[in-house]
């Protein structure tokens, strides 16, 4: 009975949120929240990218790495250079990137293995020539002497001192599905986003695994919204300031170690529940890449940046704490609404999209 009451309350609450004014139909009574504004410069094959499908982006000081469908591109001194399989890249499609901040080496997850780019030299690891669990490398993250890898057949760790590979899968972790989509490694915890098996947590101190699931099981219903992970199909994780941000195809989650707070399109500023990537700025703020645009959450308010889904014209909207959505006049937008990856360069943002790479240059307000 208690659960039924909760369900009714939640449904009512959802109805209220869904009844919030649509963009363009607003009457503001308070000042528009100050949300970051950008001038987006977009890169495509027309100005140097090897391919417009950009799966991953990585900021490395003044260098920008872009993982594309046809090679790994690096932007430096206003020019693009592309590494291909001829240079030793494991596969032409580069789908994840990570920087070893200690050494400056870049790790590239591809559809055909994991590549290490160090001082221009590329060494590639595959399931045939190394202990890598699978050639499809959806995620990679470097912490200390370990490279943590998310693959289509489980998680694994390469120790750079001993060269030992450790594999983590359904046999030695609480992972029901082994399709690992994302990894975020820090000195204290390592989080994996598993496609269909929630979030896995590895404690660096104890070496033990824990698991976070959607309390509603594998359904697409949200019966108990803030009681746990929003959905089992986790596409991206980001652990920052002791807070876990998790993205799924059915909404996003924030977990501070004690409480969960979830975000759905119907009750937040998310432009879509279908989220490819989340990247936390800190414990309060995060960026979300969805199939319907780039979204920013400052802990209270939301901003969405996208080319219009109707006519492709640049759009920006701001949603305040009251749920009031206000359009903001802009002249530029990310290259495409389908956002695949995000990284920060100071106040600037770099965004990988389905039709190019975008550099959001922060404007002074």
């Amino acid at each position: 009975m208690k659960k039924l009451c909760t369900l009714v309350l939640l449904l009512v609450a959802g109805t209220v949120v869904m009844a919030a004014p649509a963009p363009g139909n607003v009457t503001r009574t308070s000042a528009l929240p100050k949300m970051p504004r950008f001038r987006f410069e977009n890169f495509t094959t027309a100005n140097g990218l090897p391919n417009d499908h950009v799966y991953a982006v990585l900021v490395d000081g003044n260098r920008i790495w872009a993982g594309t469908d046809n090679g790994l591109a690096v932007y430096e001194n206003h020019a693009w250079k592309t590494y291909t399989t001829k240079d030793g890249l494991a596969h032409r499609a580069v789908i994840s990137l990570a920087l070893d901040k200690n050494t400056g080496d870049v790790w590239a997850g591809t559809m055909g293995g994991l590549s290490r780019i160090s001082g221009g030299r590329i060494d590639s690891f595959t399931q045939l020539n190394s202990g890598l669990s699978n050639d499809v490398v959806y995620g990679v993250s470097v912490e200390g002497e370990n490279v943590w890898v998310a693959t289509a057949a489980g998680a694994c760790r390469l120790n750079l001192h001993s060269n030992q590979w450790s594999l983590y899968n359904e046999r030695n972790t609480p992972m029901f599905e082994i399709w690992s989509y994302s990894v975020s490694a820090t000195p204290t915890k390592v989080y994996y986003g598993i496609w269909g098996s929630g979030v896995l947590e590895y404690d660096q101190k104890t070496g033990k695994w824990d698991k976070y699931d959607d309390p509603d099981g594998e359904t697409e219903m949200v019966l108990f919204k803030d009681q746990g992970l929003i959905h089992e199909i986790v596409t991206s994780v980001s652990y920052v300031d002791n807070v876990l941000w998790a993205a799924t195809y059915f909404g996003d989650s924030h977990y501070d170690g004690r409480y969960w707070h979830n975000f759905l399109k119907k009750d937040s500023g998310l432009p879509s529940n279908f989220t490819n990537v989340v990247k936390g700025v800190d414990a309060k703020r995060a960026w979300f890449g969805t199939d319907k645009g780039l979204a920013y959450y400052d802990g209270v308010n939301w901003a969405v940046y996208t080319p219009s889904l109707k006519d492709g014209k640049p759009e920006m909207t701001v949603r305040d704490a009251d749920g009031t959505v206000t359009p903001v006049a802009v002249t530029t937008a990310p290259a495409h609404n389908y956002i695949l990856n995000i990284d920060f360069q100071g106040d600037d943002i770099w965004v990988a999209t389905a039709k190019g790479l975008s550099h959001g240059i922060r404007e002074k307000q």
Partner: protein
Amino acid sequence: MNLPLAAMVLIAVALCGANTACEGEEHRTVENVPYASPLEVLFSPDGARLYVLCQGSDEIRVLDAASYAVTAKIAVGHIPRGFSLSPDGATLFVTNTWDDTLSVIDTKALKVTATWPVGAEPSSVVEDRAGTRLFVANRISNDVVVLDAATGVEEKRLLAGRGSSYLTLSPDGSRIYATHVYPNPDAQRTGIENRTPPESEITVIDAGRAVVVDRMPLHHIAGVFHVAFSSDGRLGVVAEYHPKNMIPLAHLEHGGAFEDTITVFGADVGGTVEVPLDELERYVSQPFGVAISPDKSRIYVTSGGSETVTVIDVPRLMRFIHAHPAPFVQDLSASANYVVARIAVGLNPRGLTLTRDGRTLLVANRLDDSISVIDTRTNQVKTTVKLEGPKTISAIRHGEQTFYTARYSFQGEIGCANCHIDSTFDGITWNLEPDGFGRNIVDNKLLEGVKDTEPYKWTGTNPNIPTECGPRTEKYFWRSENYDNLTLADLTIYLRSLDPRPSRWKLAGYQLTPAQERGKALFERAVDKFKKTIPELNRCAYCHSGPKGTNQKLFDVGTHKANDNAGLLKSAPLTSIALTAPYLHDGSARTLEEIWTVYNPDDKHGRTNDLTKDELNDLIEYLRTR
């Protein structure tokens, strides 16, 4: 059949008979005598002291630079390989290859003040100009470890070339140049044999940020040693081996097996240019140490196998390379344009150093415990300083001298150590003539632990070391001169004395990690995962039995290639197998994993296709402890 050392010596002595070369030498001891074996030399900043790294006696000897009298001996770790001074000369750092440590020596007190752990097989060390960081090249871990210079605490490890070994700080202190003795792994598979020319690099490290900023490619090079710079930093030079392993090793004429080269680089050169040191009919085998005179007029290069120092006229070299289109490496007549002298020195000359005025060059002769003192104006050896040590030459020492010298081969082109760098291996594959051109590609194997693993060669056709190293080597490699019987016996004794290096994958006390324990169980299993008994011949532990991982028998493990002649393959020893890629008889497997993921489709090379990826990783973790 195993022959005890004493029996080997008796046979050799008996065979010696009337050979006059043996007279007076038949009573050599077969004990392993600790010779000084000077490897590197270094002046103190004020030029008053000469530090000598003595690899054989595990010590640094301090000599008065005027009289060459020994003023101190400082014990360091086991088998030191590299050393350098702090910028102020107050501290001497020494890398100890078997201990994986760095000795820190106070040069005022002449005492070791600290011993710090570093990476696997530390081989060279430099400190940055600020005195804040130490950089150590580690041969086994293939990296350059960065340490806090005050505490020795490790900050990071930078990926270097395979067999990372030698470091040089640029004159302005901004860059560190790192070289490596084994070629880098092939970036890509190229076919069933995976044969590609060796590729090496000079790894360029930003000393201030301690990150790799460039890798200068050295094409067709396997074996890169010391780097030196002119004092203005505009000219760099590196000593290297240029093997010809992609063509059948049919003859030594015209550099058919190896060329001995340097690569010059820097602003004066405008890129990297490889030039030969050899002449048309004479070679300077195994280039190792390099130095550039303070006035940038001369480059000096030691050649360990030829017992010479080559003197190059820098202005003539620059005129030559700027006036002629590269490449020059195939033209052995090129050296006549810039080589102005060859100076005969002692056995296996290695490190060298110049006095500050450039008038005197000192060369460490590793295998006769001496230092050649050369007048650079006349290019003559002024004197030879004999270091204190055993007065007699042991059989092992004589064998080692034989191993390194190139004097037996046609025109002095190669010695054993060309392909077995520092008595190990070279990481490349060869096509030897006896089996037919293009037939029986052979992976060069590690020599450590070779004792009691006969028969030799992967076909098992050589029943013992004297056969392997005697007639076969003389006919197909040297083509010029044979060993006398005593020399062959001593060479054999030397090879049998080569112990494996300590495994870096074993825990203290030889305990195994959980993964290694699981792998060991797989290695020793007799039943597969479907509870079927594995035939004896298909068990890892049957063919790879015993302490060295071989039962010394021949098998068909399904790895024959179309260009292999028929026959069975010898069960290869597992000694230090983690270090010795590539694998299989022909080097077709680039990694241990590929032995089973690529080359064992029918489970003929052990029952492995029932294993999960985790289990195969465990098996490999265990093998790496061998």
